[in-house]
């Protein structure tokens, strides 16, 4: 097999999605099996490509595969070209590997859903779009994948159509993502104007010659796009609501893969960020703010999935922070992205397993003491827990520690924020752990918690193993650094104190977080949430993110709409009435000859014509 066949990676799940979605009821019986097979095939192929690539010299590892010319107008030419290089192959393995596990898990999780086949169709559609996103060699093609994953995410969040909340959440996700998409579309158009092409190669080559203003603008546009897709402040609000979707969706799309696309975009555009300090700083600030905001939200949620979603936001904030640090951070951003993909998918699927045994209840106040009836779920969740806390030798230890080190090397304030975030992470994850698996049982009498079937526990076990062993990518001779360096570059920067001291400080802060959580949550936990302090309420309401959106965007939007509708329907009429009074009923007399509202339309045309002529003359005279 050669790189020429890279397109098969995308084509296999796309074909499977087409069969499942167009095949109708005929495919009901075996649809989930085909749907699971597709990512497995892509994964196997990805592994082959990966080992082939390892066999090559590092400078020969990037290869573009031109499939066909998409369109060309004048000098603008967009080819359907895929780029297979050390960066994209890691994503391919993550997407198809974790994707396969989650497909397998879904066979069990969605067993009783009458629309299971359609669910697998959408999941395959997502896999295909996500692979296109990371394999594209042109920003416009990235955009196609970008919109594709957005569409799949929209369909899957709203999958349980009978729930109104799901439909609302799906719509919100779609709209907020479109705000981010504006950034990407403007960026692509600017690239066309600046470089005459949006292919990675041309943009990377041209980036250093572009004026710093344009580089900053491009960087900010791409950051806007990344904020939308990766749920970074200020476009974070959709992710918590997106938890309305089935849990495998939350694990695959809203934890492991799609939401990390923003980090991919920033790292992929490193050539642009390297020439603009302003935009890189903006990336760091957005990442830091989100890392803290997500962690704080995670502290107050009683819904297990929302607590994890807050955590996802926060962890992606860390990746974004690292990506903003430049060559010192790119590798660690991607490294943390991979380990996070393992341990967060693990914990989401674990949460799904808990819900499966608890009649789909998501409120942690109704859990407690589940470690006995759900031994495997508990053990695997614990692995994810230790990994996200950064306890050695779990995967998160290596990736997060390096980010905190790099942050300190760059700027002490940012470093302190990252350190604080690690402490809060320890607090809220311990809280989740204690409320779910420890303490006294708080579930109702008609609930009978039980362990999930093997088809669901095996993916958990594999992901738990990866949560433990994922760190090997780094500690085995800094493999990931060597692997990614030819693509994104790397500079080792040293924190003000030695790395070992740094690690010990971080571990101490994490320990403090754990102790506080244990002290607070070892007592009995009421089944109803107490009123809570103002800080808790602030965090429970997602830091008033929705209220802010409502006040800043929605209300003015509604007023604008109302005003325009009012103007459109009646405003001109009102003006007629006003003028009628003014001109002694002249208009009133005219009105007798006309019925209906044509007169107001005509009047608006007169005003329009007057405006047009005046505008023309004004331009000439000025």
């Amino acid at each position: 097999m050669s790189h020429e066949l890279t397109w098969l990676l995308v084509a296999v799940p796309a074909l499977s999605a087409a069969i499942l979605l167009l095949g109708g009821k005929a495919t009901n019986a075996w649809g989930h099996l085909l749907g699971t097979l597709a990512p497995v095939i892509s994964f196997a192929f990805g592994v082959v490509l990966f080992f082939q690539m390892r066999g090559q010299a590092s400078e020969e590892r990037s290869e573009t595969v031109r499939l066909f010319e998409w369109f060309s107008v004048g000098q603008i030419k967009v080819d359907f070209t895929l780029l297979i290089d050390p960066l994209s192959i890691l994503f391919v393995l993550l997407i198809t590997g974790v994707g396969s596990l989650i497909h397998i898990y879904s066979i069990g999780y969605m067993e009783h859903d009458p629309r299971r086949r359609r669910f697998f169709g959408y999941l395959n559609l997502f896999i295909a779009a996500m692979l296109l996103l990371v394999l594209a060699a042109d920003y416009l093609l990235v955009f196609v994948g970008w919109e594709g994953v957005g569409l799949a995410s929209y369909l899957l969040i709203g999958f349980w159509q009978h729930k109104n909340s799901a439909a609302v959440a799906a719509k919100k996700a779609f709209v907020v993502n479109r705000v981010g998409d504006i950034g990407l579309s403007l960026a692509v158009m600017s690239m066309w104007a600046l470089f005459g092409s949006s292919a990675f190669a041309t943009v990377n080559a041209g980036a250093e010659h572009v004026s710093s203003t344009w580089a900053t603008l491009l960087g900010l546009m791409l950051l806007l796009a990344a904020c939308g897709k990766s749920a970074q402040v200020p476009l974070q609000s959709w992710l918590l609501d997106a938890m309305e979707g089935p849990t495998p969706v939350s694990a695959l799309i809203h934890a492991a893969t799609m939401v990390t696309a923003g980090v991919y975009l920033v790292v992929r555009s490193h050539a642009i960020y390297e020439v603009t300090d302003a935009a890189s700083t903006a990336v760091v600030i957005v990442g830091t703010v989100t890392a803290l905001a997500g962690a704080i939200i995670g502290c107050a949620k009683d819904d297990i999935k929302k607590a994890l979603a807050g955590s996802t936001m926060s962890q992606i904030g860390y990746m974004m922070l690292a990506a903003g640090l430049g060559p010192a951070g790119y590798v660690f951003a991607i490294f943390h992205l991979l380990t996070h993909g393992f341990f967060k998918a693990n914990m989401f699927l674990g949460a799904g397993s808990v819900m499966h045994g608890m009649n789909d209840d998501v409120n942690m106040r109704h859990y407690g003491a589940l470690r006995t009836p759900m031994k495997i779920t508990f053990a695997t969740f614990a692995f994810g827990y230790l990994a996200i806390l950064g306890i050695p030798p779990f995967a998160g230890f290596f990736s997060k520690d390096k980010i905190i080190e790099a942050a300190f090397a760059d700027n002490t304030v940012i470093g302190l924020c990252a350190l604080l975030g690690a402490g809060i992470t320890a607090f809220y994850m311990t809280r989740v752990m204690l409320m779910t698996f420890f303490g006294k049982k708080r579930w109702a009498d008609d609930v009978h918690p039980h362990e999930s079937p093997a088809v669901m526990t095996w993916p958990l076990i594999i992901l738990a193993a990866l949560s433990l062993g994922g760190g090997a990518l780094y500690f085995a001779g800094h493999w990931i650094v060597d692997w990614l360096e030819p693509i994104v570059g790397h500079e080792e920067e040293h924190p003000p104190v030695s790395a070992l001291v740094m690690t010990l400080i971080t571990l101490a802060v994490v320990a403090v977080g754990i102790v506080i959580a244990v002290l607070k949550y070892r007592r009995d936990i009421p089944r109803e949430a107490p009123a809570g302090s103002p800080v808790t309420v602030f965090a429970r309401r997602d830091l008033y993110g929705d209220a802010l959106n409502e006040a800043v965007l929605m209300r003015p939007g509604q007023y604008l709409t109302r005003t325009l509708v009012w103007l459109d329907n009646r405003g001109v009429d009102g003006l007629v009435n006003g003028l009628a009074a003014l001109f002694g009923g002249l208009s009133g007399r005219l009105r007798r000859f006309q019925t209906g509202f044509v007169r107001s339309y005509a009047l608006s045309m007169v005003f329009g014509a007057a405006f047009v002529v005046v505008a023309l003359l004004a331009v000439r005279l000025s």
Partner: protein
Amino acid sequence: MSAMLLPLADFTAPKIEYNELAPLLVVFGAACVGVLVEAFLPRPLRHLVQLAITVVAVVVSGVLTGILMNGKKELLAAQGAISVDGPALFTWLILLALSLISVLLFAERSIDGGLSAFAGQAAAVPGSEAEREGTAARIEHTEIFPLTLFAVGGMMLFAASNDLLVLFVALEVFSLPLYLLCGLARRRRLISQEAAMKYFLLGAFSSAFLLFGIALLYGYAGTMSLGGIADALSSDTGSDTILLAGTGLLGVGLLFKVGGVPFHSWTPDVYQGAPTPVTGFMAACTKIAAFVGLMRVFYVALGGSRWDWAPMMWIIAILTMVVGSIVAITQTDVKRMLAYSSIAHAGFLLTAFVGLAQAGSGVHNGITSTQAVLFYLVSYGFPTIGAFAVVTLVRDAGGEATHLSRWAGLGKKSPLLAGIFAFFLLSFAGIPLTAGFTGKWAVFSAAWTGGAWPLVVVAVLSSLVAAFFYVRVIVLMFFSDLPADAPDVALPGWQTTSAVALGLAATVVLGLVPGPVLDLAARAGEFIR
């Protein structure tokens, strides 16, 4: 005196390039034949014969246009009055293709109890005994077919007219049949007649502006021909005030047909009241003809004063996008929503138009405004007719159920129909791999490279708002419960089925492989003078 008694030898017949004008002549000729058919053929035969004549005329005209495009000979025909150039031929081709689909919709008779969407007797008072008798006797107005052909011919002429007088005549030739067609709905006749009345009154009003503008420009340049006006502009003789006033008034007349704000107010009422197949025809074809006409006048004749009119057009473009997208949000009627959506699309088109990316103006990017607009018109026309075709199929006892609340849960009742409609909406919203995506890219990048980047920012923001209301309809169709009294989905005849299928196929193909059509638009080149 001697001038009046010219000897015959002095009178030279105007040179008419029959070969180049054949597509126009075929359509007009077939329209005249259609009128004769009405006079001489017995009633039962008329529907079939008229349909056959119309389809054959449109297809033949399309083939002739294709041959002309292939020959690639551009010229000013009929003594410089009609310009048969690349953009004109391209426009003819789209107009004919979309008219063919519209005619199929007009001919549909199986979704409303064996009757067409048009009134049996337009003269019968709505709700009267005469109307009931006519319906019982299955009387139909087959005149709609020749009327459509006249409208199509007028639109083709409008897009190709190289002389302001021809432009005006063509405008009336395509408008008058449309006024009639608008008033011919079989169901809800009063609102249909009201729509026709409004359209007629406001259309007449806008024609007056247009005519006044033409008169002023004639006063400035001393000629009606577009090339002549351009020459007068470059030699800079005459009064600027007259030129600018003329430009403004002419612009008003053209923007009215395009549906630009503030000259858009007729659009929602007329789109809602007119029979849905006619609405689809108007939304697609009128917009195409009007837009090409607008571009031709402003680029060819008034290109020299573009710095005078561009700021005004900037404002109109922004208003059109913003008002179209925002007001669409609160619409509760699917036809009105599509009307506002068409206004927003006019705004997107205007961005490319005022972006003024022109060949040879030193822009980095190769796509010119003309090419971008031509492509957008294709990518907008097909989904539009398809969407209106779908609207004709959702019916209850009172005819089409156009209130949006009646569309709730449609996805559960008929997943196929709702899915197709959702696909058209996604195309309007500009989601990748649909026609709308490629079209939006084309116009936005033309505007961007032409330096109108603030317009592009507004356009992208408006398309975000627009995406919201398209998605709202999709959510309504798929994520709401089906009410007990939900409307039925009529089983379409072959005509509507093929119209929807053609619209769908074009939307998919233009999204996946836009290359050939973009090439065609690129090869159309620029307007000649």
